[in-house]
C-alpha cells in the first residue's frame, strides 16, 4: 500500500538530488536539470497532499501552473546559456567569472 509518506520521501529525495546537482555541477545545462528536479519534487508534494491529505483540488491546480512556469523558466535560462556559449565557447558556469569583488 502506497501512502502519503512514500510520496513525501520520494519528493524529499528529488529535492535533495536537485539541490546536490545544482551545487556540484559545472555545466549550466546540468544545473538546469537539477532545478527541474527541485520544481518537480514540489509538484509531487502538491499532488500527493491533494490526493491523500487535504481532500481539495487546489494542490493539483497549483501543480499544473508550476509545470507551465517550469517550462517558461527553462526556456529563458536556456536562451541565456546559449548566449553564454556564443560569447565564450563554453557551457561551464565557473568560467563566467568576470564579475567579482
Amino acid at each position, binding site marked *: 500500500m502506497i501512502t502519503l509518506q512514500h510520496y513525501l520521501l520520494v*519528493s524529499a529525495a528529488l*529535492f535533495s538530488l*536537485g*539541490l546536490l546537482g*545544482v551545487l556540484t555541477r559545472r555545466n*549550466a545545462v546540468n*544545473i*538546469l536539470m537539477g*532545478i527541474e528536479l*527541485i*520544481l518537480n*519534487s*514540489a*509538484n509531487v*508534494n*502538491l499532488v*500527493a*497532499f491533494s490526493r491523500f*491529505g*487535504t*481532500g*481539495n483540488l*487546489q*494542490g493539483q*491546480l*497549483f501543480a499544473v*501552473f*508550476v509545470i507551465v*512556469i517550469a517550462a*517558461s*523558466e527553462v526556456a*529563458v*535560462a536556456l*536562451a*541565456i*546559456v546559449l*548566449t*553564454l556559449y556564443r*560569447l*565564450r565557447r563554453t557551457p561551464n*558556469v565557473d568560467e*563566467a*567569472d*568576470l*564579475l*567579482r*569583488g
Partner: protein
Amino acid sequence: MNELLESLRRFHPEITLTAGLLLVVLLDASGIKARDALCRILSAATLVLALLLCVPLYEAGWSGELFGGMLALDPMAVFFKVILIAASLLIALAFGSSRELLGLGQGEFHSLLLAVTVSNLLLASANDLAMLYLALEMVSITSYVMVAYIKGDRLSNEASLKYVLFGAVSTGTMLYGLSLLYGMTGTTSLQGIREALATGFPEQNRFAVYLVTFLVFAGFGFKTAAVPFHFWCPDVYQGAPTPVTAFLSVAPKAAGFAIMLRFFLRGMSTAGPGAWELDATVNWPVLLMLISAVTMTVGNVAALTQTNMKRLLAYSSIAHAGYIMMGVVALSENGARSMMIYLAAYLFMNLGAFLVVTLVHYQDGTFDLRDYAGLWRRAPGLTLAMAIFLFSLMGIPPLVGFMGKLYVFAAIVEKGQAYYWYAVVAAVNAAVAAYYYARVLRTMIIDPELEPKPLLRLSFADASWVSFFVLANVLPLLWWSHIDGWARASLTLFAGR
C-alpha cells in the same frame, strides 16, 4: 459571473498595463521608422494612465477579494501599486540617456518594463499561494531577460546567468516550502493558512513549521536581496544595464516587501484589536529579526571596500533591505507604515543616485569610483545632486531618507526592551554606512583628477530630471503631514471574509 465583473471593475490599472504592453509589442513589430521614440511615449502614457486609475481605487478605500480569492485589493495594495507604477514611470522617462542601451531596440525594453510592472502589481496583491508563486516567477523571469538585454556583452550575459540560476533555485526552494505549507494547512489561501495555524499545531510539529517558514522566505529573500539569498545582487547590479539596475533596486524589491508583509501579517498572524497579533504556532519575527540584522551588517561591511559604483550601490541596497525589514519585524501598524514610507523614500533617493551614475557613464564611459575624482570641478551641479542623494541614503535630516529611518527606528523601539539590541545594531550600521557614502563624496570633491577631462555638460532633459530627484528628496518634508496621512490611510490590510 457577477463576482468576475465586479473584480474586473477594480482591476483597471492592471488591464491598462496589459493593453499597453500588447500595443508596445505590436508597435515595435510594425517597422515604422520612429518606433523607438513612439514605444517610449506609449509606454510612459500607459504608465501615467495606470497611475491615474489608481486614484479612484484609493478614494473608494474598498477592501476585499478579487477573482475568487486569488488577489486581494485593499488600501495597502493600492499604496504599493502607486509606488510600483511610479518606479516604472520614472525609469521610462528619466533614464533615456543610457550609453548601454544606445542602438538597441527600445520597444523590447519597454514591453519588458510594462510586463514586470504588471507582475509587480500582481505580486503586491497576491492572496493565494498559487498566485503568489506565479507572480513571483513572472517578475523573476521578465527581469532575467531585462538583465541580459545587452546581447553581445559578456558582463550582461554573465549577470543574467547568475541571476537565472540563483533565482530558479531560490524560487524552487520557496515552492517546495509552499507545497509543504499546503500539506500542513490543507489550503492555499492566506486566509485559510491563518485559520489553520491559529487552531494550533501539535508541539512536535513546531520545527517543521519553522523550517517551512524559512524555505518560503527563500523566495522573499531572493526578491528583496536579504542575506543569505543576496549573492546574486552585486554581480547582477554590476553587469546589468544601469537603467535595469536602477529598476531592480527599487521596484521588484518593493513588491517583494509588499508580499512579505502580506504573507506574514495576513497568513501568519492574527488580526488583533487595531493591530496584528502574533500567531502562537510560529514566532517568525525572531527569524526575520536575525536575518535583517545580518543583512544590514553584511551589506554595509562589504560596501566599505567597493571600487565600482554599481557594486557599491548594490551592497548599499542590501543594507537598506535590512532596514526596511525592521518594519515587518515590528508587527504593528507603525511598523507597516514605516516600511511603506521607507520604500517610498528609497524610490527617490536610490533612483537619483543611479541616475547620476548613468549620466557620468554616458559622458565618461566608466563606473569606477576612481574616475569620479574631480567631478566637483567638471560638474558642480551634478556633484551637489549626488551629495544630496548620498546624504539621503545616509539618513541625514531633513531629507526623505532620514524620515524613513526615523519611522523604522521608532516602530522598533516602541516594541520594548527585547528589541533594543536590534535598534542598536541598526544604528551602528547606519554609522558604518555613512563612512562609505562619505568616501564617494570625498572622491568627487577632494581627490585630484587622474587625467584632465573636459567639463561634463548635461542636456536640458537630464538636468531637469536630476533636479526633479533632488526636489523629491528635499521638499516632501514641507508636506509631511499629507504623506504621513496617506500612509496612515493605507494601513488597512484585507483580513477575513
